[in-house]
C-alpha cells in the first residue's frame, strides 16, 4: 500500500546542497538501503521522508498522500505521517522504564484501551525478546538490549513504513550480525516498507532489496544489490561496493570489431570481449547527447532567479590504482582521450594457477580459513585477489595467475562510466 515517491527533492543550507535533485520510488514492502560515504546526504534524505527535516524544494508522497510539496505549500508534520523511526542512538527516554517507553506512543492513541496496550507491549516485547526487561530503565540495559527496546517501541504502533538511521552501528561486530538477520526476519514478519540508512556496504548488500547509492548529495545508482555489484554504473559505485575493494587498472587501446585490444599493467597486451555487443564510438556519441541535455537543463535551472550556486560541486571521482609501497594507492585523474580506459577486476576473478598468463610475487597473504586474501605484485602494480579454500602462500613466493570470468568491467577513463562488462584474456 504505501509506495514512497520522491520527486526532485533538494535540501540545501545556503550554498551547500545536502541532497541535490533526488527522484526515486520506493516500492511497497521494499527494503531499501540508502548507502554512501559519510556526509553524502543519506540521513538527510531519510529525515526528509519522515518529516523531521524540511526539504528546500521538491515533492514527497507516501501512499497516495502528498506529504510535502514546496510548490503547493504542503508540509505534513512528522506526527501525522504514520511512520516509524529507529534512531541511531536509540533515543530511548531515560526517565521511563522499558514498558513505559514502548507504551508511551500507544497511550496517546485513543483506540487503545489499557489492556490492549499491555497486550501490544507484551507482543512486541516478545518479537524482540525483551520480555524480561520491561521494568528496567534504559540505563540498566546493554547496548544490544537498548537496541531491541528501540525496535519494539518503533514497532508498537504498527507503522506501515519503518525508517532506520544506522541502527546497528553502535553494536559490536557479533551482535550486529545477529541483529542483521533479525531485521531481515522482521521485514518479512511485519510486511512493512523499510528504508534503512547505512554507510556499511555489507549491511546494504545483505539486507536490501534495492540499494540507493549516493555521493555528495547526488544519487549515483538505484538498483538491486547484485545489480550494483555486477553492473556498477560508474567508478564510484564499483569502488564503494565490494569488500575487498575492486582492482582498477589503467588501460589504453582501440576497438577492433567486437574486441577491444588493450595495453595494461605496464605494457601487457590484453583483449577485452564485451558480453553484449557494444560500439565504443557510438556509445560515446550517446553519452555526449545525454550530457548535452543535462548541461542544458542545469543551465536553465541556474538561470532561474533564486538559484544558489552549489558550493559542493560534483568533481570527478578519483579512483585509485594500487601500487606497491603506496598506502591506499595512487589517485588517478580522468583523461581526455577516448582510447583511455579503466579495467575493473573484482578480487574473486583473480585465479592463481600454474598455467596463468601473468607472473607475480605474493606481496601479502591473509588467510581466514574460508578464503585467503592475497595481494599480488606485478611490476609496480598490486592486484588483490580472493582465493577460496585453505591455500597458504608465503610472502615473496612467485606465482602465476589469470583474470577469469565474464564479469570484468570496462570503464571509460574520460567520464568514469561503465561501457561494458565482459571477459579479459592475454592477447
Amino acid at each position, binding site marked *: 500500500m504505501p509506495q514512497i*515517491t520522491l*520527486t*526532485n527533492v533538494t535540501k540545501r543550507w545556503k550554498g551547500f546542497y545536502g541532497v*541535490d*535533485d533526488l*527522484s*526515486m*520510488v520506493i516500492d511497497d514492502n521494499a527494503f531499501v538501503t540508502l548507502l554512501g560515504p559519510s556526509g553524502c546526504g543519506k540521513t538527510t534524505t531519510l529525515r526528509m521522508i519522515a518529516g*523531521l527535516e524540511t526539504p*528546500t*524544494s521538491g*515533492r514527497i*508522497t507516501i501512499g497516495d*498522500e*502528498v506529504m510535502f*510539496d*514546496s*510548490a*503547493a*505549500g*504542503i*508540509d505534513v*508534520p*512528522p*506526527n501525522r*505521517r*504514520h*511512520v*516509524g*523511526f529507529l*534512531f*541511531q*542512538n536509540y*533515543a530511548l*527516554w531515560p*526517565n*521511563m522504564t522499558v514498558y513505559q517507553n514502548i507504551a*508511551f*506512543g500507544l497511550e*496517546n492513541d485513543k483506540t487503545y484501551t489499557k489492556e490492549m496496550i499491555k497486550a501490544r507491549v507484551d507482543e512486541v516485547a516478545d518479537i524482540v525478546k525483551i520480555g524480561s526487561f520491561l521494568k528496567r530503565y534504559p540505563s540498566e540495559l546493554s547496548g544490544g538490549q537498548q537496541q531491541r527496546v528501540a525496535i519494539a*517501541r518503533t514497532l508498537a504502533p504498527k507503522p506501515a513504513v519503518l525508517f532506520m538511521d544506522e541502527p546497528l552501528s553502535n553494536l559490536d561486530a557479533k551482535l550486529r550480525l545477529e541483529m542483521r538477520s533479525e531485521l531481515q526476519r522482521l521485514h518479512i514478519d511485519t510486511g512493512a516498507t523499510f528504508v534503512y540508512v547505512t554507510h556499511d556496504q555489507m549491511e546494504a548488500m545483505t539486507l536490501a532489496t534495492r540499494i540507493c547509492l549516493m555521493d555528495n548529495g547526488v*544519487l*549515483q*545508482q*538505484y*538498483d538491486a544489490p547484485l545489480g550494483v555489484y555486477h553492473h556498477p*554504473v*560508474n567508478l564510484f559505485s564499483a569502488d564503494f561496493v565490494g569488500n575487498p575493494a575492486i582492482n582498477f587498472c589503467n588501460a589504453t587501446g582501440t576497438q577492433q570489431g567486437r574486441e577491444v585490444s588493450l595495453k595494461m599493467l605496464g605494457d601487457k597486451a590484453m583483449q577485452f570481449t564485451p558480453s553484449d555487443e557494444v560500439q565504443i564510438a557510438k556509445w560515446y556519441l550517446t553519452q555526449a547527447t*545525454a*550530457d548535452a541535455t*543535462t548541461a542544458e*537543463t*542545469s543551465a*536553465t*535551472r541556474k538561470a*532561474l*532567479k*533564486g*538559484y544558489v550556486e552549489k558550493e559542493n560541486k560534483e568533481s570527478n571521482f578519483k579512483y585509485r590504482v594500487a601500487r606497491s609501497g603506496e598506502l591506499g594507492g595512487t589517485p588517478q585523474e580522468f583523461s581526455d582521450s577516448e582510447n583511455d580506459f579503466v579495467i575493473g577486476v573484482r578480487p574473486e576473478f583473480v585465479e592463481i594457477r600454474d598455467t596463468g598468463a601473468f607472473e607475480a610475487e605474493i606481496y601479502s597473504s591473509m588467510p581466514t580459513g574460508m578464503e585467503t586474501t592475497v595481494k599480488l605484485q606485478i611490476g609496480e602494480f598490486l592486484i588483490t585477489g580472493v582465493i577460496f579454500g585453505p591455500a597458504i602462500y608465503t610472502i615473496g613466493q612467485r606465482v602465476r595467475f589469470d583474470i577469469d570470468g565474464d564479469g570484468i568491467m570496462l570503464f571509460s577513463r574520460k567520464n568514469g*562510466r561503465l561501457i561494458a562488462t565482459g571477459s579479459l584474456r592475454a592477447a
Partner: protein
Amino acid sequence: MPAASCALIASRKRRGKFSRASSAFVNVGKVSMSLDTTVAPPLAPLPVGSPTGSPVLRRVTTYFSKPQNGLLLVLGIVVTITTLAPLFSILIDTITVHPGSVDSERTGLMSGYTIFNWSDLVDRSSFVKERLFAQNFWNPTVNTVLMSALSCLFAIVYGGFFAYLVTRTNLKFKKYLSAIFIFPYMMPQWTLAVVWQNLFKSSAVTGGSDGLLAAVFDVHAPAWFCQGLFPSFVVLGLHYSAFSYILIGAIFRNMDANLEEAAVILNTAKWKVFSRITLPMITPAIMSTILLVFSSSMGSYPVPHYLKFSTLTTRYVEMSVNRQGQASILAVEMMVFGIIMLVANQLTTSGRKSYTTVTGKSGQTQEVNLGAIGKWLIASVFVVLTLFTSLYPMFSFALETFLPNPGDYSFLTGGGFESLTTKWWITSENLSENGMYGQLGVLYNSTIWKGFAGQFWVAAMSALAAGTIGTLVGYCVAKNRRSRWANFVNNMAFLPYLMPSLAVGVAFFIFGSSMGIFNTFLLLIIAGTIKYIPFASRASLNSMLQLSNEIEESAIIQDIPWWKRMLRIIVPIQKSSIISGYMLPFMTALREMTLFMLLCSQTKIITTELNYFDEMGLYAFSSAINLMLIITILICNAVVNKLTDASLDKGIGGN
C-alpha cells in the same frame, strides 16, 4: 497583530523562492538521473483529501503547527519590548526637560525636549564648568573603569590561583576551603564593604565613629586603605573571585590531562606548558569572568557607596536629585559599556577554536606537590583568609547589634559584657528613649518584617516568571538552532545579563514612572524578571543543547502532543537545570539592592530598608538586617542543595 503579519511577510518571501524553484522542476525533470535505472515519475495531480486553500496559508499553518515556533515568536516580542523599551526611555529622558531641575531652570522650559543636558555635562568652557565636568562626568567614569578593571584582575588572580591550588595540587582541607570560598558570592555584595568599614574606619582618619581596630587596638589605617578605590576593588574582587574560581576550576577539573601530558612527553618546559597549553585552555573562562565581573562591578552601587568612592553609580544617585537628565546620561554611559561587553562576549565565544574539555581516558594529572610544610602552610593561610570573608562578617554583624552605640567597643576595653545591650532587638515599648528614633526593636518592628515579606514576594514572583520564560526561551532556541530570529531572541534575553544593574534599574525607574507603576511590586517584579531571565535561559539552553533532538523526535513521530512531550519527557530529563533556572533568580533577587533601590520607596523591601536605617543612623538595625539576610540565604541554599543537586555555586558557572 504584529505576530501574524510578521509571519505572513516571512512566508510570502519564502513563497517567492519556492514558486520560482518549482517552475524549474518541470523542465529539469529527470535529466540528472541519466546514470541510474529509475525514471522520475511525472508530478501527479494533488490527490483528493489533501489540504486545500492557498499555499501561503498552508505554510503559515505548518509553521505554527510546531509549538516552539509560535512560542518563540511570542517570547521574542515580549522580551524585545521589555528589554528595549526601558533602554529607549532612558535615552529619551536625557533630552527631556525635568521641571525643577537644572535643565528647566537654565533653558526656561517647563516641558518639551532639549539637548541642554548633553551640552552642559561636557561643557568645559569655564573654571567652574571644568570642575563640574570633572566631578560629574570625567572622574566617575575614570574611577568606574579603574575599579571594574582592578576588580577583574583581583578576582581572576585570586580565584584562578585558588582554583589551581584546589584542582592541581595536594593542598590540605580542599573540601572545606572549596565550600567556604564560595561564601562571599552568596552573601550580599555590600557585606564585605560594611565589614571592611566596621573594621578599619576611625574617627581620626575617616571621621565618624571608630572601627574595631581603632577602638580596641588604636590602630589607624591610612585613608586610602579605609575608603576609596583600594577597598572598593578588593571587596568587589573578593566577591567575584568565587565566580572565577568556579569557572576556571571547572575547566581545570574537566580538562583532559592528556593535553598537558602530551606536551610534557615532548620535553616542554613547565612554564611553556602553562603559557601555551594550560592558559589558552582557561582563556574562555577568564573571558567570561572578565565580562561578568566588569559589568557587575560597574553597576554596583552599595560597595562604592559604603566605601565612599565616586563612581558612575554613586554619582548617578547624587545627581538624580536636581540633575535628573544628566544623571540619565551617566546611565546611558553604563549601558554603552554593557553593550560593548555584549559585543565582546559575542566575539570571544564565536571563534573557530573549540575548547572542548571533556575528559579523555586519563582521569587526573599527577598533583603538584606543595611540600610537607607547604601544603599545610598554604592551606592555613587560606583558612584564615576565608574566615574573614565568610564567618567573620556574620560575627561582626552580630556584634554590631549588641553595641550600645556604633563604635562603642567598651566591653572589650574594660566594660565587660554588661556594656552590651539587647535593646536593638527586643525593645517593644518606650519608643522615646534609647535613641531609637521611634523604632521598635528588630524583632517587633513591622517595617522590617514587611520589608522581608516584600523581598520574598518579589524574589519568588521574579523567579517564577524569569525561570519560566528563560526555560522556554532556552527550549525554543535550542529547537531552532539555525534560525536568525531564534538567535536574536536569545541575544535579547541575554542582554540584561551584561547590563549594569543600576542602569537597568534606571531604565525601569523611568519606564515605570511613565507607566504610573512606580513603587509597586509589579514594577519590581518586572525589573527582576527581565534582569534574571538570562540566568534561566543560559542554564536551560546549555542543557537543552546537550539533549539530543532525537529524544523528542522519537516522540513526535509517535504523534505525542507537545504538552505531553514537555511534561513527560523534556521536563523530567532536564529537571535539575530547570530547577536551577528558578532558584538562581530567586537567590539573587533575595539579596538584590542596586536593581531595586530606584524603583520603590525605601521601606518596601528589606534591602532598600538598609539605606533607610543607615540614613537614620540606626546602624545596629542595618547590621541585624544584614545578618538575617545572610542567614536566610544560607538556609535557602542549604535547602536547595538538599532537595536538588542544583546549587548557586554550580549554577553560576553556566557561561
